[in-house]
């Protein structure tokens, strides 16, 4: 691993200033992606700015129709949270299915979203619930946030503070898990919210996306069979040694059907 200086700021302002002061620096959340990346030499930051001691970045707050989760909140804490289990049980379930216990004890919501791994779980929920990503400088709609493979709308140095999830009437998540890495080969989050049902897909494309054709076909009703016939363009889906694009498309249909069946149950 390359050498770097380590910083542990205690305020948001100090963290953002430290990052801005060193163009090749990187924020560190739980390190569950960043540290392996450092070991592989895929990132060589001059300075690592640990967000662990920054006040106000971790925690969960529930207002009537909105659940706010701080960027530094660990997956294990989201999974175990009584507020999350009450307001959006599907989100607590999703967090409990991420990686393994040790990963959930360190990995964070903010780190997962900043990284935007195509196979990460949280992006499906963020997209389906129409969450808002609150940073040090603005608030972004989920639909504007994911841009491509490991690419988001975050500017250099922009720090995610929290994510605001609207509380849906009902929601469900199903993923087909890679048996070794446990990431989603395909994952579908469905949420009955506002006028209709929103569908967020992860694992299949370069980044999480809404399956709007299925949303239209459902017209607000959780009809699992619609997932078998709604148009799904898989030309840009991921294809690797684990699954071809066509197979991922099939998995998306099956996960959507199961999630919708769960929603209807």
């Amino acid at each position, binding site marked *: 691993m390359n050498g770097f*200086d380590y910083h*542990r700021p205690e305020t948001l302002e100090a963290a953002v200033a430290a990052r801005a002061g060193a163009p090749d620096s990187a924020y560190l959340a739980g*390190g*569950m992606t960043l540290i392996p990346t450092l070991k592989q030499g895929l990132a060589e930051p001059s300075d690592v700015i640990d967000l662990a001691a920054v006040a106000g970045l971790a925690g969960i707050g529930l207002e009537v129709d909105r659940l706010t989760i701080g960027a530094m909140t660990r997956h*294990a804490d989201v999974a175990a949270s009584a507020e999350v289990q009450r307001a959006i049980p599907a989100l607590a379930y999703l967090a409990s299915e991420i990686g*393994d216990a040790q*990963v959930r*004890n360190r990995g964070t919501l903010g780190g997962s979203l900043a990284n935007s791994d195509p196979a990460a779980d949280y992006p499906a929920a963020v997209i389906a619930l129409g969450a808002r990503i609150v940073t040090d400088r603005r608030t972004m709609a989920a639909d504007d946030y994911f841009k491509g493979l490991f690419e988001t709308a975050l500017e250099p140095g922009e720090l995610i503070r929290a994510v605001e999830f609207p509380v849906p009437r009902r929601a469900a998540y199903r993923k087909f898990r890679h048996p070794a890495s446990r990431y989603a080969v395909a994952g579908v989050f469905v949420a009955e919210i506002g006028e209709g049902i929103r569908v967020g897909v992860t694992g299949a494309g370069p980044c999480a996306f809404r399956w709007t054709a299925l949303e239209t076909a459902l017209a607000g009703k959780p009809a699992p069979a619609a997932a078998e016939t709604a148009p799904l363009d898989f030309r840009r889906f991921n294809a690797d040694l684990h699954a071809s694009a066509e197979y991922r498309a099939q998995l998306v249909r099956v996960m959507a059907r199961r999630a919708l069946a769960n929603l209807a149950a």
Partner: protein
Amino acid sequence: MKLSLTVNETAHELEVAPNALLVEIIRGDLGLTGTHVGCDTSQCGACTVEMDGRAVKSCTVLAGQAQDARVTTIEGLGAPGNLHPMQTAFQAHHALQCGFCTPGMIISAIDLVKRADGRLDEAAVREGLAGNLCRCTGYHNIVEAVLAAAGQM
């Protein structure tokens, strides 16, 4: 940089490199070689230690992230003649063969039992230990040992 942390109830003040890993400090600086490095890629769990009450993969924790932390390694659990119930159960159920995965497996298993509130069954143990790989046993006896120890902790 300066690092202060408590390992197995002993406080340490160390001078470490900012890019040192917690596992390197435990094994190198402190000579506690019960914690193993199997993969160094965050997959196998052989390096699992308890840090501030949670099981973590110490190959994926930077020195600075352990500042002021309380760490427990396998050496801190029990001693010959006075083993932790989980260690005794692993012995009684023949839950190890080469033993390489065992220190991390035992730390994870204790963490799992502590969090489970008495609601553990075979499926929950297998799921809960997913971050710890064993190349020898096929897991069967590990699951039995954890369930047996859960009743005694």
